[in-house]
């Protein structure tokens, strides 16, 4: 039994992993090149980030008074948070999109996966922004730690978990790629 299992592991080809990682890295670079273009940044990313900031401010506004938003800055009498690239969920969405596109699947299931997981990541990101704002207001000494180490990792982990869940349950194999 152990021998059979060992053989099956040893025979598992490395090539699909390398191909996936190569496609994933290429997709990351292409997506980055698109979002880094000045017109895309000015007319898509910044307005989108302002919407994210407004949504986070609206949620915070239900919990406390005096929350204001100006562009990408959420402000209260005690604290102000500027939502920048890296805090708007775009980075996790790009990683997720690159993984979904690199994974062998049909266009239909990829598009559904991108839409559903993209919305889920942005909802999680609103929780991140709300909790970071609260930490900034009431627990300033640990704000940076949670900003850099905890929430960034958690959002990316959530993106990876969504990708794995999608790849296991919802990714339809294209006929030509089936073994």
């Amino acid at each position, binding site marked *: 039994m152990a021998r059979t299992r060992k053989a099956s592991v040893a025979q598992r080809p490395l090539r699909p992993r390398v191909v996936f990682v190569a496609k994933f890295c290429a997709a990351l670079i292409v997506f980055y090149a698109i979002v880094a273009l000045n017109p895309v940044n000015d007319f898509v990313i910044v307005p989108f980030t302002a919407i994210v900031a407004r949504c986070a401010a609206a949620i915070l506004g239900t919990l406390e008074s005096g929350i204001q938003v100006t562009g990408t800055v959420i402000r209260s009498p005690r604290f102000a948070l500027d939502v920048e690239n*890296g805090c708007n969920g775009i980075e996790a969405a790009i990683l997720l999109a690159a993984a979904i596109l690199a994974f062998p699947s049909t266009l239909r299931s990829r598009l559904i996966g991108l839409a559903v997981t993209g919305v889920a990541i942005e909802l999680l990101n609103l929780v991140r922004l709300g909790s970071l704002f609260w930490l900034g207001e009431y627990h300033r000494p640990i704000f940076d730690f949670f900003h850099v180490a905890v929430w960034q990792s958690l959002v990316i982990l959530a993106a990876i978990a969504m990708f794995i869940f999608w790849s296991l349950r919802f990714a339809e194999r294209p006929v030509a790629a089936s073994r």
Partner: protein
Amino acid sequence: MPKDLWPRLAKGATGFLLGLTFWWAMSNPYARLLSSLCEPLIRMGERPPVTHLIAGGTELTIDRSDFPRSSPRPGLPLMDLTANVILLATLFAVNRRPLRDRNVAGLLIASLVLVVVHVIAVVMNVESIYALRLGPWSEQNYGPLARNFWGAGAHFYSLIGAFGAAFALWWLFRPSNPEIVK
């Protein structure tokens, strides 16, 4: 939902906390290691070699022997660049049988490659500081192509490259999992 969702979440949480603790505890010695690895690489591209990277806490102070004595030295915070260690530790912890030889070996190999990724990231960031943040000196010494290359490289890493690298390394070096590998 996967049958073993809760055990995997527990393993992931444990890996996350261990990774976070390791990253936090080792940040000072790791800053010294990165400065000793990166300085020779940066100096290789300089005529004459002038860069000194001084590790202080979790930050590298960038010094050059041709800087005026009175001018402030730029600093490079390392915590942002190296936080992907936490992600890597969590991902390997979620694997089935995380303490198996194969998984631990995969984690060690991936960690070693991640050190190389960190070295490249530090070199990119130092060069981007030289190329973009030193005013007229930057414009005199770096052309538009070089400024864009180093600036985009450092920005790419900070935005998605750091976490993308950790995910790619996990995907490459994790033990085979018939559920995921298609």
